């Protein structure tokens, strides 16, 4: 398979020059396929990627992220920093300056009041805002003049680029959404389907879960863009059909998230009508080890709680041996192909936050066996399963229902059988596994198993909240209705102290250093989290579509204004 990401990037750069002279709408129509169809275009009412990304064609934040995760200005002149005085020294205030003369697609001017309204909209207690986390810690949004937005935080905010930044928290037009505050938010269909925005396109027609017809925004700030006069974002079908529509039949120009098996990737790319683009973000498929005892014999309310440490997995050598026995490259080849790569890190990106650790990539079965022997786990009764002090080395391994995960389970089970570990597999429907229902025994938070596998990532480029999930006080248990992200029940005072330090540090280099350290404490020091595969995005673009740059830090359609037709 030929992955021409770099090449295409070069084409994009070369292509930018002619595109800059082009006229708005000169390149006609472009077809985009989102096989999970957009259901709403207001990202504040839906957290689905499909909705956020389609919405980003219309709605924009003050700033965004580029493909390297760097903050770039959109509606503002420059990115405020401590150096340029945009952020106060104590990190409790950030001041954004809008570009003068910006217009909404209906021709009215964009003002700081719109930003203030957006904050009020999302933080309204009855609105059920899906992006409320991005506005956390904001005490006030002030508008000293029409172009200045001052955001005040309750405490130091080392990463203030959350509110109003990126496709997930764009600016809404106050005039349009004025009657949609709070409980009324979900009744404003017209507004939610046809928001007025500042982005390169405006919605012409919206059919729920089916198709969005867009046309170039007549008031877009760059008079030469977008190159396409109209755009269709079509939904429906599955990843395979989407990949085929771009790569084999050429019916579409761009298809989002064409996650297909490696063989099919090769076969379809060979048809030569388009290329698969891949980009890696922060999504990591991992195995989480349960540090507490999930034994069903324990009374309800004490299972998988800190009262009872795990009889087997409390032993570091066992955890390490389990990690060493896995050949991660095999997993990548079976499940993801070009859309995955073996990793040892919980935080695989952005580059500055990623640990250089690659110890786990090479499978070491003999080393794993030796470690187990060393810890006293030997096969004393000759049944092929190791034991120690009468405890058999037997693990219950759960995950959600998903074809790739079931393949992974089967393969990892065979790896672990190799080193004398007996494994029982369990699959739970995703709706239950990720459902968070405190009454169900099968949620990933409750973790009534020894090890479990799923994927998780973090929003944006800053891993602090993500790493803070492993604090001692975030352990789920009966006292907090099993809510809490620290599913491993990992607890290390040194780790907590370091997270505390991270929250007070604003120097980027130092933040990166701490984040790398925290990541290693969870992975190569303790093997509490065993990362397997860094899962990338895989999208397909037609050979005739220029300017596409896959971005995993913001929405994939982040630079749709720069797309053009290669003739």
């Amino acid at each position, binding site marked *: 398979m030929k992955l021409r990401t770099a090449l295409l990037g070069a084409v994009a750069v070369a292509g930018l020059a002619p595109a800059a002279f082009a006229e708005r709408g000169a390149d006609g129509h472009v077809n985009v396929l989102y096989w999970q169809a957009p259901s709403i275009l207001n990202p504040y009412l839906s957290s689905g990627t499909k909705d956020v990304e389609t919405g980003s064609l219309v709605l924009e934040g003050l700033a965004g992220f580029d493909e390297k995760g760097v903050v770039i200005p959109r509606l503002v002149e420059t990115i405020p920093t401590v150096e340029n005085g945009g952020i106060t020294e104590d990190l409790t205030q950030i001041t954004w300056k809008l570009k003068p003369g910006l217009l909404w697609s209906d021709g009215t001017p964009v003002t700081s009041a719109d930003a203030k309204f957006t904050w009020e909209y999302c933080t309204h207690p009855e609105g059920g805002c*899906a992006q409320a986390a991005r506005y956390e810690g904001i005490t006030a949004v002030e508008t000293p003049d029409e172009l200045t937005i001052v955001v005040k935080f309750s405490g130091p905010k080392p990463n203030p680029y959350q509110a109003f930044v990126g496709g997930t928290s764009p600016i809404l037009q106050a005039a349009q959404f004025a009657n949609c505050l709070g409980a009324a938010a979900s009744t404003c269909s017209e507004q939610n389907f046809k928001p007025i925005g500042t982005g390169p396109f405006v919605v012409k027609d919206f059919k729920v879960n089916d198709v969005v017809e867009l046309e170039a925004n007549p008031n877009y700030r760059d008079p030469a863009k977008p190159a396409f006069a109209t755009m269709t974002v079509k939904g429906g079908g599955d990843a395979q059909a989407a990949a085929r529509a771009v790569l084999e039949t050429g019916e579409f120009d761009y298809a989002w998230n064409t996650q297909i098996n490696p063989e099919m990737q090769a076969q379809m790319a060979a048809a030569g009508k388009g290329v698969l683009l891949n980009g890696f973000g922060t999504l990591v498929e991992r195995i989480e080890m349960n540090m507490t005892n999930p034994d069903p014999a324990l009374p309800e309310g004490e299972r998988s709680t800190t009262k009872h440490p795990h009889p087997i997995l409390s032993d570091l050598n066992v955890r390490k041996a389990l990690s060493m026995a896995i050949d991660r490259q095999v997993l990548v080849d079976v499940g993801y192909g070009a859309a995955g790569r073996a990793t040892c890190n919980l935080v695989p990106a952005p580059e500055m936050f990623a640990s250089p650790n690659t110890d786990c990539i090479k499978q070491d079965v003999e080393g794993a066996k030796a470690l187990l022997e060393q810890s006293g786990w030997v096969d004393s009764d000759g049944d092929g399963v190791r034991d120690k002090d009468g405890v058999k080395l037997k693990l219950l391994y759960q995950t959600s229902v998903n074809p790739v995960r079931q393949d992974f389970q089967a393969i990892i089970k065979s790896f672990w059988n190799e080193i004398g570990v007996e494994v029982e597999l369990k699959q739970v429907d995703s709706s239950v596994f990720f459902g968070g229902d405190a009454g169900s025994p099968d949620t990933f938070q409750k973790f009534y198993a020894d090890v479990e596998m799923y994927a998780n990532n973090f929003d944006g480029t800053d891993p602090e909240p993500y790493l803070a999930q492993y604090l001692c006080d975030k352990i789920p248990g009966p006292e907090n209705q099993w809510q809490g992200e620290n599913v491993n029940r990992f607890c290390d005072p040194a780790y907590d102290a370091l997270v505390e330090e991270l929250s007070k540090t604003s120097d980027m280099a130092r933040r990166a250093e701490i984040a790398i350290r925290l990541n290693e404490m969870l992975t190569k020091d303790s093997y509490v989290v065993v990362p397997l595969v860094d899962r990338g995005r895989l999208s397909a673009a037609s050979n005739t579509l220029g300017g596409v740059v896959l971005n995993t830090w913001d929405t994939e359609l982040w630079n749709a204004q720069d797309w053009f037709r290669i003739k």
Partner: protein
Amino acid sequence: MLTYTLRRLLVAIPTLLLISLVIFLLVDLAPGSPASEIPLTVPAEVKAKMIEAMGINEPVHIRYLLWLKQFFWTEPLYAIDAAFGTDFADNAPRIISYSSKVPVIDYIAERLPQTLIVIGSAYVIAILIALPIGIYSAYRQYSWFDQIGTFVSMVGYSVPTFFTGLLAIIVFTSWLGWFPSIYNTSLRVVDWASFKQQVTQMFLPVAVLALFNAAELSRYTRSSMLENLSQDYARTARAKGMSERTVVLKHVLRNSLIPVITVITLGMPAIFAGAIVTEQVFKINGIGAALIGAIHVNDLPVVQTIAFITAILIVLFNLVADILYGILDPRIRYD
């Protein structure tokens, strides 16, 4: 006849109410939760707020009564408003989808054309194919035409549409590239080119479904014809020296079609059921696809409303079939 119809209509009301209760509870009491669709990156508190905003935390009976009121009172008002530009509804809350915040009825109205065009035309074509085949096979019972026709219809009736559909897609779309692989719902037929486009994208699903329905209908037609061909009146007609054509096409056919028409009427609501699988296979964004999608994301209002509308159609068409039968067959008198 009129009193009979009215009586049946009155009986249908409690039936429908009961059905609505069954459907509502069945869907509502299911253990899944729309929360599982929200990504892990969204914190738990935000998730709880989002769920609360959907109105899920109200007790079941309140939500049922609200839904009933919205379905039978508010939504018709909105329909009247939309048709005549009045303002009876006065912004009363409507049935809103959890996931897309769209009024469910609008959503269904948006999806209906695709389903009706594809599945409806498949049904019409099926009838057009099935009747002549059924009639001729019965008339020439045990001839080679009958043998082949019966076998083909048996096969067509037994092979599930999702299998034939998938095979057709692989052969005609993937290998031969004759048909588009994505159904374009925003295509407007304005000229010859767009008409051709519409026909090409409809061809496979219509062909597969029509084959299946035709198989079933031709079996009915054949057996109904066979029954009537051996009746005394057919013999009498022949004995009177009528031409074979008149006997078969005028006397026998008319009587044979009575049960067939009932079967056709009863099969109409099945259009929606059939749509589920066909739309899934051919990626047509119609009612069936909407239902499956809604079930997947636990969008309960959409599931409840689509299921209930289908139930209304079934009750309605049962009634129509009964009345039609009474009109067509004077021997049947209801009052």
